[in-house]
């Protein structure tokens, strides 16, 4: 099956304009998502995953602003289209599951009415049909007593239930691209499995592309076709899932994989990457990872590496490979 490019993000820059100056939360991010493909984005928390997805949705709120790059969806540049056209896409072709399920639901409306809203907006259905569909969606995401939950208010649900409601809402219109920002963090594994299965089904049936943001490498391993690793507002590595797990190239990726607790074994101490993500003020001018990198060299301190192809479709932003390549070629 030939896969067309559905979404292509290139050199996206989203800055937050604070009093202390502009904070580049997303600093030149590029990647592609093909139809029916599942792209997982992993990375340190605070590295700009959510902001990237909000940028795609066109929902970055002030003081944030997209200051550069473009986002093409079906070849259409989303950074230039009118608000009205954007609205037609949102919730329909493009939908998103937000990270904070607890505050993302309006406390004054029932689950049902918030769920129906999106269905009624984008589909030609009657209220009753929308209701049927809403309840069906709730059942699909594994919510017990769906009819009752449909009539409940957000505060009456547990975190996981709210998360599932958000998922139901995002899936209601069978979007072409689903951006799922940590959709299963609040869920227990059995429901997580259900939801992941639901997403897989979506891919199979509707050829939906998924941009899956998660911290759970287990989920990545299970779901993703391609994995993007972000660090400090940049993409540092991109590879297909097998390559990435088998041969992580970037030292940060390596660190991540090493830190994952395994269920089979018991370690005394988990491995972790020392240090913290630099802040805006402390952002190195060279490689952004060098202060924490075991392989850092003078070059890393001085110059920023660019995203290099290192074969097999794997991309990496690291001088180690530059050096190698320079050496080899």
């Amino acid at each position, binding site marked *: 099956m030939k896969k067309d490019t559905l979404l292509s993000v290139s050199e996206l820059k989203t800055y937050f304009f604070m009093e202390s100056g502009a904070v580049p939360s997303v600093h030149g991010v590029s990647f592609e998502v093909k139809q029916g493909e599942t792209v997982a984005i992993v990375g340190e928390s605070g590295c700009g995953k959510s902001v990237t997805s909000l940028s795609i949705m066109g929902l970055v709120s002030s003081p944030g602003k997209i200051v550069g790059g473009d986002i093409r969806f079906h070849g259409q540049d989303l950074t230039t289209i009118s608000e009205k056209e954007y609205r037609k896409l*949102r919730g329909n072709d493009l939908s998103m599951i*937000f990270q904070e399920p607890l*505050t*993302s*639901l*309006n*406390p*004054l409306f029932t689950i049902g009415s918030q769920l129906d*809203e999106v269905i009624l907006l984008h589909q030609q259905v009657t209220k009753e049909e929308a209701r049927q569909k809403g309840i069906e969606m709730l059942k699909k995401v594994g919510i017990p007593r769906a009819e009752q939950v449909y009539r409940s*208010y957000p505060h009456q649900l547990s975190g996981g239930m709210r998360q599932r409601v958000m998922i139901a809402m995002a899936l209601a219109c069978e979007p072409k691209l689903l951006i799922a920002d940590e959709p299963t963090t609040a869920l227990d594994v059995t429901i997580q499995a259900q939801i992941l299965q639901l997403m897989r089904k979506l891919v199979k049936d509707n050829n939906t592309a998924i941009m899956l943001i998660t911290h759970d490498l287990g989920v990545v391993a299970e779901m993703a076709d391609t994995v993007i690793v972000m660090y400090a507002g940049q993409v540092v590595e991109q590879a297909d899932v097998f390559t990435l797990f088998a041969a992580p190239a970037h030292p940060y990726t390596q660190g991540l994989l090493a830190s994952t607790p395994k269920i089979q074994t018991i370690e005394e101490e988990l491995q972790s990457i020392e240090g913290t993500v630099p802040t805006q003020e402390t952002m190195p001018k060279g490689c952004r990872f060098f202060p924490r990198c075991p392989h850092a060299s003078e070059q890393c301190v001085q110059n920023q590496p660019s995203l290099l192809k290192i074969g097999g479709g794997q991309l990496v932003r690291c001088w180690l490979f530059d050096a190698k390549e320079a050496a080899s070629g």
Partner: protein
Amino acid sequence: MASYIFKRLGEMIPVLLIISFIVFALVFVAGNPVALMLPEDASQEDIDQLTASLGLDQPFLVQYGKYLFHLVQGEFGESFRYNTSALPLVLERLPATLELAVAALVLAVTMAIPLGIWSATKQNSPVDLLAAGGSVIGKAMPNFWLGIMLILIFSVMLGWFPVSGRGTLGHLVLPALTLATGLAAEITRLLRSSMIEILNQDYIRTARSKGMREGMVVYKHAFRNSLIPLVTVVALQTSTVVGGTLITETVFSWPGLGQLLIQAVHTRDMAIVQACVFVIAVLVIFMNLVADVLYRLLDPRIKYE
């Protein structure tokens, strides 16, 4: 909920009793009505005599006790000034006051809601600044000035509305407008501030992500959430409006409670003051109850045990 309402209504009785006591004490402290009833040149003996025959020379508690005794039988006593039973006198005024209050509130709310939402969504735009200026002027214009101005413009110069009195819808327009400006100003400002807060919430982003029109996002999701402070203010204002329309009522010679009450206070006409306060208290308590019930209806998170 029903039991809650009944409980609240039950609480009304002690509150009314306390109010009656406070009012009685206040009027008592405020002074003897007799001197006000007699002409300027009445002699002291005349005053003392009338005081004694009205029983106003008895100790406070005796007077209050008697009053309470009558009150329990549903009697508010006779007005010194009008020589008739007080409660019917007050009730007779109630429709006029309610008419004016409701009209003013409706007018205020209809003016304020779009204006408040508009200034919240377009913060610091010319519209917002204009609305801010307008609200301040609305608040800073004393009702007597505004009322007289409205009469001058719309009645004397343009002849569109009758000058004063109560009756047709035309009579209602100017006084209601006079009262509404101040209320509208307050509601506008409050709505603006709570809307600004709410528009920052995550669920607004969710609504936008559904592809809703911005207008719908604002009206459905944000507005509903800002209704709680709005309900409080409107309920509060109802009480203010019911008891405090004096100036507007005077300017437009509107035969409402305000005029009656103020005159009664000025003449220390206990029975009328008590009856007025009673009626107002019932209204106030009722409005606050309505507000609390509305909170509950609006915000499912609020629970009353």
